[in-house]
Every structure is written in C-alpha cells, then in structure tokens.
C-alpha cells in the first residue's frame, strides 16, 4: 500500500467539495509532513474538523512522528570520540 492511491474518477477537488475519509486517509503522512499544497492541506484540515473517524487516527500518527523525532534527535555521548577528535585537530593544526 502506498500513500499516493489514485483518486477515484469523478472525485477531483473543486471549490468547496469535501474530501471523503478514504481521500483524507490516503494523504495522512503528506498532510502531517506539510507536503500538500495549501489548498489540499486546507481540505484535509476541514475534513478532520468534522470527522470523528479520521481525527483520532491523524492525531495518533502525529504523536508517533513527534515521538520518533524527539527520541531520534537526541545527541549521544562518546568521551573516546572527543579525545580522538582533539587529537585529529592537533595533527591538523601541526
């Protein structure tokens, strides 16, 4: 399964037309990653404001991505590495 499932014929977005759950769920990550064009982004946002089925799922995915980011972006310590980097700079400085 991919996130870019084809949009069924006849459901192209025009003006105030609303997205279905299926159409919203197909772009959950693109929405959360800020990768949709502003118009489509707004359509998904409006769908989520009304849809009790989709909102919890989007919220869950948001929490998951925030969590991965927070944990993954933490630094890691290595005293040995610091010593080796200083030695490398000593060599380079001459």
């Amino acid at each position, binding site marked *: 399964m991919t996130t870019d499932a084809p949009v069924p014929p006849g459901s192209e977005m025009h003006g105030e037309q609303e997205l279905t759950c299926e159409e919203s769920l197909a772009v959950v990550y693109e929405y959360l990653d800020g990768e949709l064009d502003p118009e489509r982004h707004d359509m998904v946002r409006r769908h989520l404001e009304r849809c009790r089925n989709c909102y919890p799922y989007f919220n869950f995915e948001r929490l998951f991505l925030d969590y991965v980011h927070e944990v993954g972006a933490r630094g890691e310590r290595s005293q040995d*590495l610091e010593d080796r980097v200083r030695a490398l700079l000593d060599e380079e400085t001459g």
Partner: protein
Amino acid sequence: MTIPAEPRRREFEEEALVHLDALYGLALRLSGGDEPRAEDLVQEALLKAYRAWDSFEQGTNCRAWLMTILRNTFINQFRRQKSRPTDVEFEQVAERPHSPALFEADPEGRLFERIIDAEVIAAIDELPEEFRVAVVLADIEGLSYQEVSELMGIPVGTVKSRLFRARKRLQERLYEYAVEMGFLK
C-alpha cells in the same frame, strides 16, 4: 584573510565541538547504531569542517552547518556503495502488509509516554538501510521529501513509500514491544 592557527583552533572548539554529541547522535542513527562507523563519520565531517572553517559565516547556525556536512559525508559513502545487491530484508519490509495494530490497541498514543527510548532507537537502527536513511533524514532531521529525494538519488514517490513502510514497521515493532512488556494486550 586566513585566521592564525591558534585562535582559529580555539574558535572551532568553542563553536563547533560543543555540537559533538548532536553530530554523533545523527551519525549513529544514519549508520544504524554502528559505533565505529559513526565515529569515523563524525571525525571525517569535523575534519572537513575544520578545514573549511574560514568559509563558515560567523553568527549563522553552526550546528546546522555541521549537520549538513555530516549528512553529505554519509550520503557520499551511501551512494558509492548503492550498487550492491538489494538484500532480502529490504524485500521483506517492502512486502509487509499495512498493519494498524498499534493504533487500534492504543489510539491515544499513551505508549509513547511509557516506552523506553532505547526501544525506539533499536527499532530505527534495525530498519534496512534504504528505509532507515529516509526516516532519519525526514523524521529526525526534518528534511522535505524533495530534499530526501535529491540526497538519496531516488524519486519523490519512492521517498514517500519508503517512509510509509518504515513508519509502519516502527509501529509494529513498538506494538510487539508493548505487548511483551504488558503495556498493551
């Protein structure tokens, strides 16, 4: 104008070396927890940065500058070895069906407050490299699909599907862990 060696060295230590932990963290995630490889990567990146220190614009974001150098250093190696055969594990992840188990078991994401970070780190590190690198660049480093696509040399559509599969795989791992620990049934 070339900055004389001593002040230049001091300046580099004060402004760049303070980011060593962040650089090593990124190097470890990119290399899947391989400590010797991550240490080599940090050293190579810092040496490049030190040699290019005169071109660093004072007052701009030094951490971001260093992270970019490290990322590019890694990507050069990654792209050089990319011609190697696709491993079996890669296919297995690619073929896995979508499993919403974690969401169904824990829709409010309470697990994320209880799980120990080492489990998540291990789950990221164990992803096949082609998936892991996409996750690290997009989810940890916050790069756009387009930027990940350019760095990895793959189409944007492939970035999307790799992120999708990798994220689902991470959720499966977390679900298995949560059941094992008795957090979820």
